[in-house]
């Protein structure tokens, strides 16, 4: 009875919520994991592809740069080797020509093994002994390779030198030195987006920095030493970076490109956040809709249940319609319930009314049974006969009267066998015949096979009484009454026929009308019979009147045989 029933642990709502919570949560978790993994894998591999392209691009730029520089150096070296003799003038103009063609070359100079300047493309080269310089010594010690110095920033220009041990003229050896400008190659950096604090480092094989686009973070060099070359995702100072290291062709240098990939973590956590919000909203929406839908089922059911409880306490008579709103099924259920309750209620009321009517009609039958008027008329007739010494007639009358009353009362039962009913009407007619001095005759022909059916009592006597009163009593020629009874087409049919004046058509209609409206007419007896057979045997039971003026009247009583009980004896 308390409202908590809706939230009963085994209730529909709770079950639905439990099941759907589990399903929803599983679904959300699966979605979460799947989308996270797919997203993460994709973004990481996409990023790696992009980053590798970027670093490839960068290292290609540098490779091309150094290849170009080394080619120039090689060409000059070849040229120097080829010449048998050299003249300083010619060489100087050749150097100047080469320098003018290659914008990154600032200066080309040739030094002898002793360190003195032989020839230079510019005039500002020192005439001093250079044999102690690093570039000089390294080139002299590694005759086959190009020696690169580290890159120095001078007045905004990034400069470095390439030195190479060469053979010039016949059996003369020396060092060829190029001063090279790296500024343009560095400028290409600004075209490449490496993200916040992303940078590029060029360092030699001893991890001494040659060039750095930004100040190095502590520990960065250690990472370079761990990776050596290749790619790696790294963390520095709370930032995520993609590190890619390549060697630069023709040099012993290495290029490290460090690009910021914080966006991966950021987008990933953004995805997780969005996922979370969507999940929560989805979950709430699911639970809310389950609640609504389950309410549409459970609340009407709960209302119906309350209504039923009320009925069980107060009975069907005052049952009211239950108004519910919910799913189609529950509304349909409620509609049917209401129909059923209303029908029960109607039937109950009908039963009550019928019971009342039956009691009333039985009461009037009882009144008829002891109709004092009939009784003292008959007693008067008996006294009259006795005075006339017609003792036999008197005796017969008394016997008939006695039988009549015994059947009338019949121990208070409301139904009697047709045999008794026929006996009752016979005694009644006998008494009346004697009272009216043999003024009429009667004949009763009831088929033997209906004799044992039990019918509501005293249905023939009122009809016979009408026949005497209206058909015989005022007829100077007397008359004749016939009573038939037989089984016909599923009906027990009685016919009471007289040969009196007959009844006018409109009079018959009045009688019929009186059956259905409580209009008082002369045919009180017929109406009473009609009401009782209707009460006992339903709508199929009927009374029909056929009349022909001056010929007589036939009254038929129809009783559906299926409604009639048969006497067991």
């Amino acid at each position, binding site marked *: 009875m308390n409202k908590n029933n809706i939230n009963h642990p085994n209730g529909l709502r709770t079950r639905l919520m439990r099941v759907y919570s589990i399903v929803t949560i599983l679904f959300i978790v699966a979605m979460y994991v799947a989308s996270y993994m797919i997203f993460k894998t994709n973004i990481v591999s996409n990023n790696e592809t992009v980053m590798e392209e970027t670093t490839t691009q960068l290292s290609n730029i540098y490779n091309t740069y150094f290849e170009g520089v080394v080619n120039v150096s*090689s060409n000059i070296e070849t040229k120097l080797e080829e010449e048998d003799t050299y003249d300083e003038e010619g060489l100087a103009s050749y150097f100047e020509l080469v320098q003018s063609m290659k914008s990154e070359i600032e200066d080309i100079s040739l030094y002898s093994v002793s360190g003195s300047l032989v020839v230079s493309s510019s005039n500002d080269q020192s005439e001093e002994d250079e044999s102690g310089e690093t570039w000089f010594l390294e080139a002299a010690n590694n005759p086959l390779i190009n020696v690169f110095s580290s890159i120095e920033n001078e007045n905004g220009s990034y400069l470095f030198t390439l030195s190479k041990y060469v053979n010039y003229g016949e059996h003369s050896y020396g060092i060829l030195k190029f001063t090279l400008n790296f500024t343009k190659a560095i400028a290409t950096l600004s075209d490449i987006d490496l993200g916040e604090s992303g940078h590029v480092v060029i360092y030699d094989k001893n*991890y001494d920095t040659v060039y750095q686009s930004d100040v190095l973070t502590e520990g960065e060099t250690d990472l370079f*030493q761990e990776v050596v*070359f*290749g790619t790696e995702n790294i963390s520095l100072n709370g930032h995520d970076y993609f590190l890619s290291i390549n*060697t630069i*062709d023709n040099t*012993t240098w290495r290029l490290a490109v460090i690009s910021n990939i914080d966006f991966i973590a950021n987008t990933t956590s953004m995805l997780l956040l969005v996922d979370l919000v969507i999940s929560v909203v989805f979950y709430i929406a699911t639970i809310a809709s389950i609640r609504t839908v389950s309410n549409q089922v459970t609340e009407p059911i709960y209302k119906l249940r309350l209504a039923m409880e009320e009925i069980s306490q107060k009975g069907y008579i005052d049952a009211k319609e239950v108004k519910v709103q919910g799913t189609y099924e529950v509304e349909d259920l409620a509609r049917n319930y209401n129909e059923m309750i209303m029908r029960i209620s109607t039937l109950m009321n009908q039963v009550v009314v019928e019971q009342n009517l039956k009691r009333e009609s039985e009461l009037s039958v009882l009144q008829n049974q002891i109709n004092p008027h009939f009784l003292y008329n008959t007693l008067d007739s008996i006294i009259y006969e006795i005075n006339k010494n017609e003792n036999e007639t008197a005796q017969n009358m008394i016997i008939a009267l006695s039988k009549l009353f015994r059947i009338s009362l019949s121990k208070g039962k409301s139904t009697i066998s047709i045999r008794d009913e026929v006996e009752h009407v016979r005694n009644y007619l006998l008494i009346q015949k004697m009272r009216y001095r043999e003024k009429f005759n009667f004949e009763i022909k009831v088929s033997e096979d209906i004799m044992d059916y039990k019918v509501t009592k005293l249905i023939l006597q009122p009809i016979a009484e009408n026949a005497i009163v209206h058909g015989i009593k005022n007829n100077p020629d007397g008359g004749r009454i016939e009573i038939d009874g037989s089984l016909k087409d599923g009906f027990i049919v009685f016919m009471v026929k007289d040969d009196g004046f007959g009844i006018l058509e409109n009079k018959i209609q009045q009688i019929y009308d009186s059956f259905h409206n409580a209009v008082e007419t002369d045919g009180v007896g017929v109406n009473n019979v009609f009401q009782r057979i209707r009460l006992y045997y339903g709508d199929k039971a009927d009374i029909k009147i056929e009349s022909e003026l001056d010929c007589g009247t036939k009254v038929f009583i129809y009783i559906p045989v299926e409604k009639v009980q048969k006497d067991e004896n």
Partner: protein
Amino acid sequence: MKIKRIRNLLISGGLLLTSCGESPASFSLFIYNSEDTFINELKDVILDDTGDDYNIDIQYAEQSQKTQMKQITSALEDDHQKLLLVNMVDRLSASAIIEKSSVNNANVIFFNREPLTDDMDNQLNAFYVGSDNSYEGELQAKLAEDIFGSPDSLNSKYDKNGDGKIQAIILKGELGHQDAEQRSTKVISKLADDGYSVDLLNTYICNWSRTEAYNMFEDEYANFKDDVEIIFSNNDDMACGAMDYLIEKDVFKYNVDVSEQSVQLLGVDATDVGCKAIRDGYMYGTVLNDAEKQASAIMDAVKYFGSGIDMNENSDYDIVKGNFVYIKGSSITYDNLPSEYRSN
């Protein structure tokens, strides 16, 4: 610098201890270019020598050091290879390769392309096997001496202008490649040392390639065709490129003794194409860059890194500078061609 060295020593030392007794079932072979004839022969010999004892993963860099670096990174980090045989594109990348191998507890054997001595110094996880290029240069010079005869009176058949000097061009493999540099330098200096005067008309860089040598001849032949008496090529492929052009221009005569050719041609490597050129009378001689011996030294190094077997036992080569092996070649002419080239 010092700290770095010590670190490498420590790593390599630890590595040797762990790798002793456990033979690597596999190694990776990195080759700078799939079209180099000599390297392919060397590779085939290595494959024959290893037989079914090793799983060998072969990767070609096609002239890109960057590609090779990617292949090495993948072999070390993804496949966890513990032994690399590397034929570098750019010899200057050796230090990075050695360092990367150290970090990944792997050993590396360089071959054919020589790392800088400085980069190999004290590196216990690295080894180099190659040819003795200076000696090859000397052998090539000796072949030239056989052709021209005494330095005082050059054979007039080949000293076409009779000036007593040898007019030569050099087909150089690659600028900065130690093989090319040493072969080119030595052939000239040996001749000079032996009293010949050589007039080096030009040095042409043809990147070890037959096609490039042919193209170079198309472009440049006119500049030296009247003067050139002998062509020194750093390898047989480039010599054959020159031969292709000279046959096309009818400079080389068909089906004659090589002594009848107006220009003499010398190669290095004694590859299949080189030997056929000698057989057919186009090339005077070549220097055997002994793939068999190199492969066998490489396999010794593989076994050394695998199971610590001492390399100096039963070997006819010396280990110099701690981890360098130079295999000496021998000269080949028509008279001592391998038997398979003599049958027809």
